[in-house]
């Protein structure tokens, strides 16, 4: 059945992906849940409308490249890749378990559709600068999209890559910042604040736009207008809510890696439209 791209359908799809993420993480007994939920809407629009990719032709040299630099959100990517048919959905139930291809951070050699093995923060953007640069050298229409976290912007390597991308005028490169304002231990501003991300990226020579990262219409419109400016790499600052979709997790730092207890799982299942049967999310 073909997927008709409408805002309504994308919203429904994003809900389904959130359910899949929750189910995968809870049943595996581990994972970074809220970070997956903050970027779900962005990833859904990317994978169901924006990226030129084909699960039946995953090595096509002209495919767009998506690099999840914040690799700890791998389960969100797995949920989408499975739904798109890059691999059998049954793999999701094996996440994090012995023999699985789906580890805590995505592995390009194990997971079909994963372009780069990520997990250590601050690596994906340089990798994406390399793919964007190579595409331009080969006059290849392929575009590169790199999703990074806001906390990840504390890594110096992000800014090395940002400087070079602007110098090289890589307008086939788009960075999306999942700006959920939280990092592992607390609110970002309480740890090492980044001030205005928008001004910082603009000062580094990027074309910047800010959006509500949960407003599907806005996300769609923004991606349709790429490149933001010719000869400049683009930065989309997506204001998001960590834990979006599970009310008691939203904007609460402690959930970064915490696993819900049975009663919390039950509450979350009710919000997401899932069932909890004998401790298993269904």
């Amino acid at each position: 059945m073909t997927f008709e791209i409408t805002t309504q359908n994308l919203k429904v799809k994003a809900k389904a992906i959130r359910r899949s993420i929750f189910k995968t993480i809870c049943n595996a007994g581990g994972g970074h849940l809220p970070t997956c939920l903050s970027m779900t809407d962005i990833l859904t629009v990317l994978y169901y409308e924006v990226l030129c990719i084909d699960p039946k032709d995953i090595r096509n040299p002209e495919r767009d490249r998506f690099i999840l630099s914040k690799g700890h959100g791998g389960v969100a990517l797995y949920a989408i890749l499975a739904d798109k048919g890059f691999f059998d959905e049954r793999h999701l139930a094996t996440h994090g378990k012995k023999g699985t291809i789906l580890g805590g951070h995505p592995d390009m050699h194990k997971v079909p559709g994963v372009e780069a093995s990520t997990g250590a923060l601050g690596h994906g953007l340089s990798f994406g600068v390399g793919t964007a640069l190579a595409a331009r050298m080969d006059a290849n229409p392929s575009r590169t999209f790199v999703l990074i976290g806001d906390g990840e912007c504390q890594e110096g390597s992000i800014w090395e890559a940002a400087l070079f991308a602007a110098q090289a005028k890589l307008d086939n490169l788009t960075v999306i910042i999942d700006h959920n304002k939280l990092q592992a231990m607390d609110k970002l501003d309480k740890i090492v604040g980044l001030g205005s991300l928008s001004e910082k990226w603009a000062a580094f020579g990027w074309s910047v736009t800010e959006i509500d990262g949960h407003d599907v219409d806005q996300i769609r419109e923004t991606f349709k207008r790429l490149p933001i400016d010719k000869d400049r790499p683009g930065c989309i600052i997506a204001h998001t809510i960590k834990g979006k979709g599970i009310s008691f997790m939203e904007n609460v730092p402690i959930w970064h890696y915490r696993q819900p207890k049975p009663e919390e799982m039950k509450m979350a299942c009710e919000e997401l439209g899932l069932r909890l049967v004998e401790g298993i999310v269904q």
Partner: protein
Amino acid sequence: MRNAYLSALHELAKNNADILAIISDNGAIVYDKFRADFPEQYINCGISEANMVGMSAGLSSYGKIPFAYTISNFLVYRAYEQIRNDVCLQNMNVKLVGTGVGFAYSSLGPTHHGTEDIAVMRCLPHLTVFSPADPLETKKVTLAAALIKGPVYIRLATGGTPPVYEKDYDFSVGKAVEIVPGKDLAILSTGSIVHEVLLAVKELREEGISARLINFHTIKPIDREMIVAAARATGRILVVEEQNINGGLAGAISEVLLEEGCGAVKFQRMGLNDTFAAGYGSYDDLKEMNMLSKTHIMTAARNMVRN
């Protein structure tokens, strides 16, 4: 060595447009010819080693073959996580080229020395580690690196390295070279210090000590057969390297000796004794100050043979 490397890279780039010379604002005028002849295959990514290595991994995912070049200290230590995660873990076809290894940049001081790079690079999965002794060998390892489909680290001294080989020889990846035959002891070495060892071996011969000199142009994979044969034939192994004695070539050799049942061999490490290279001055001055000169090597060899 640097010129030999660049001349080999030039040859590679001429025949393959996917070969890229990437530098981190280091190399200056030595890259002039390359830049003039292949402007599309040359990228100076500024003083940002982490980005250079990560970007090289991305480029290689498109079929490019980046040769990322800078001073070994900055390349290996600054960008180590990128080397491990982006290049080695993903098994990318990236060539990492570090210059000034050992204390070749003598008077620049320890911030510019590469005296632990063998230890930290030889433990990385998928990575081939080359450590040529002279310009001829540098050319051979550079050409060989391009043929390997996977990550390679080439460690180079600097300009002005004297030749070790009198004539051409058959190069094979992972196959150490017996430069001088000998039966009383075997001196195993690597990189530009091999030349100093060669001087020592020649003088030892005049004293009646027959020292076998083996050059390891490939650190990983290490030539196990050559190590075992030297141990069995001479019973005495002296390792000379411009590295901390912990974890470098001597580490690799001792691992093989024990695993191959040669643990009873007389074994000595010569290098930096868990310290950074001391002093400023010429390369020769630093060899002297750090007890790695011809004289020191000869003394160590004599003691090994006579005691």
